[in-house]
């Protein structure tokens, strides 16, 4: 995406004679002022609701703070404590498993469905809407509760398995499978990346496919050598977005894990553990420190994605 810059001359009413530069500067300054005035509501939000609380949490991360008593400065003790907290390591591990499985899976499914929907048939719009629907229900509490019921011992999923003679188990209650029900729930919400993929697919010029076919490429070769490279910026965009989303998953894990990562801590995502420390045990200093480590880790991961992205993302305009 490129930002087109509108030359300011087109906006400022042209004076009848060549204007003195100083006057023009004043006009510009007034324009900038007006711009900031219009931005004020957003700026107040950014500073008041995002920037200040973030800085405050950075401060809190160096304190012992239980909400009830003023924060007490303890330096980097919270960060040190994290290194020796086995639950912290466990939560990191669970989160990595969750994100590293659910994100690629979700993108694959989204791309697959987008490919299926990328054709002009009667009623295709209906199917596009239908397949997008789960994403609208998305991360809601209601859906997580439905999920919990569906994958319980007596849930619909086991009834279904029972029909074909397979004996199921309490999928959400078994530490070996609970996390995978969360992954499934995340993957099922493939709508947003699907729509973006679909838009990307429509951007690929048909000449490229025609040229490939003339050269004797089949469908599969065309997919690997035309579709994927042409789609790579979109894949990259989706990957970055979904990765960040995946690491921040909270609602469904909180509901399905009964708010404490059960069974046996198998659904203890980082965010859930952070919440438990902060609000369950009133250890806001530790929770703030965890939040900052999280921010930095996700930030680093994004940087890594951007760096490695250069090697495989093809922007189609000559420079990679």
């Amino acid at each position: 995406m490129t930002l087109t810059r509108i030359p300011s001359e087109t906006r400022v009413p042209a004076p009848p004679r060549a204007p003195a530069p100083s006057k023009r500067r004043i006009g510009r300054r007034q324009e900038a002022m007006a711009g900031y005035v219009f931005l004020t509501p957003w700026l107040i939000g950014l500073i008041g609701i995002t920037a200040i609380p973030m800085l405050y949490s950075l401060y809190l991360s160096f304190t012992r703070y239980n909400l009830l008593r003023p924060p007490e400065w303890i330096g980097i003790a919270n960060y040190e404590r994290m290194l020796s907290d086995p639950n912290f390591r466990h939560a990191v591990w669970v989160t990595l498993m969750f994100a590293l499985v659910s994100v690629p899976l979700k993108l694959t499914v989204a791309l697959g469905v987008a490919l299926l929907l990328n054709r002009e048939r009667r009623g295709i719009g209906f199917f596009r809407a239908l397949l997008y629907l789960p994403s609208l229900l998305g991360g809601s509490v209601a859906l997580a509760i439905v999920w919990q019921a569906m994958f319980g011992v007596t849930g619909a999923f086991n009834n279904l398995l029972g029909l074909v003679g397979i004996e199921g188990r309490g999928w959400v209650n078994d530490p070996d499978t609970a996390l995978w029900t969360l992954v499934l729930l995340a993957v099922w919400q493939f709508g947003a990346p699907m729509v973006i993929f679909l838009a990307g697919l429509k951007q690929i010029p048909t000449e490229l496919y025609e040229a490939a076919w003339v050269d004797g490429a089949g469908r599969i070769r065309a997919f690997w050598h035309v579709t994927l490279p042409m789609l790579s910026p979109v894949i990259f965009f989706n990957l970055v977005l979904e990765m960040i989303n995946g690491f921040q998953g909270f609602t469904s894990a909180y509901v399905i894990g009964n708010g404490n990562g059960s069974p046996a801590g198998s659904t203890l995502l980082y965010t859930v553990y952070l919440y438990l420390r902060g609000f369950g045990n009133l250890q806001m200093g530790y929770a703030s420190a965890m939040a900052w480590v999280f921010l930095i880790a996700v930030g680093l991961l994004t940087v890594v994605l951007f760096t490695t992205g250069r090697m495989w993302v093809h922007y189609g305009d000559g420079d990679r």
Partner: protein
Amino acid sequence: MPHKPASRHSLRRVTALLAAGAVALPLTLAACGGDEGEDGTIELEILWWGGPERAQATEAALDLYEERHPNVTIHRRWQGYDGYYDGLSTNAAAGDAPDIFQIDENLLSEFATNGITYDLSEFLGDTIEVDALAPGLLETGTVDGQVAGLVAAQNTPGLIYDRTVVQQYGLPEPEIGMSWEELIDWAEQISQASDGQVYGTSDPSHDYKALWVWLRQRGQELYEDGELGFSEADLTEWFQLWAEARASGAAPPPDVSNPAIGGDVSSQLVITQQAATSFMWDNQLSELSEGTDHELGLTAYPGDPSGQWARPSMFWSIYAGSEHAEAAADVINFLINDPEAGQLLGAERGLPPNLDVREQVADSFSEAMQEVVAFEEQMVDQFGDAPSPPPPGHAEVRRLLEDAAQNVQFGRATPAEAAASFFEQAASAISL
């Protein structure tokens, strides 16, 4: 804004509120001039957790108070236990906690040591009568010499069993003083007699209060001086006991047990009729009885009953920043000591802490509540001393115990391994 579910009283209250507001308005304007509170109207806010049954009873009692004290308006808020302390702590941090709030031993000492609770000692024997309180209960609300909370009700651990099932298979009902091994043998017989339809007992290996009673029977405590009061070997033995119970079929496999953990009361196995017992607090009998068509019975946890104690199920505290502490204290006095209030409140929170009230109102209780009273009367002479309240970090310790017990249940760890990892993790949970 204080909100409460609509009830038949609400219209009256709204009218009263509007009227009070209309009356108070000129006076509040006058108050700006510096004449504070001359008008005599007082607005209090009260907060508790609980279900609809508790809300109904508490609202009725507060209505009665307002009727007797027309100058006092009490705004009520209530919610479930989940997230209760999130909100309350945040309010307290913002200097905006309700005048009166319900609190339990999990956080009482934390709130008290942080100066959130008003020291009630100045009201004792004056605004708040304490002479008739059951012995030992007043002290449970005392933290570092401050009276941080006044006991709102009393309960004790109670083993709730399915009398219908027990009689159906012709087994004796469990009794106070039966050993843990006897309970498990008894449970095994039920499992066998019912041909696996009903497990004899639910599996409390994850449950801190069952572990606590079991430890106390061995002369130990869950916490001692703010640290864990037991050893890895004790916990291994506890897990081992229940691993064997599961192996013999006395207790259900984790698939069955697990949905009951952390769910609400209606998911207890004695309600879903998957097991013949659940490890509860005794006052929960009335709530549980409404969830099943079977008849339920109540007894002590297995082992020596001196492992149990008269426990303050919850306290009423006053916010240290309250502008009307005296008026709030009067409301607390009413809730605890007034016989009519006692009748309205029943034993939903636990037994009335005031012995006179307990005696006077017991006859009007529902059948289930009367069974609770009878059980407490049997226990009262056998109770051991009350332990000191759990230290900060207790919530995390409970979660870790659940994790460890589940790892054993699902065969992901041996009892010894689970106990070892519990101790490793708990060390970093307490005291931070």
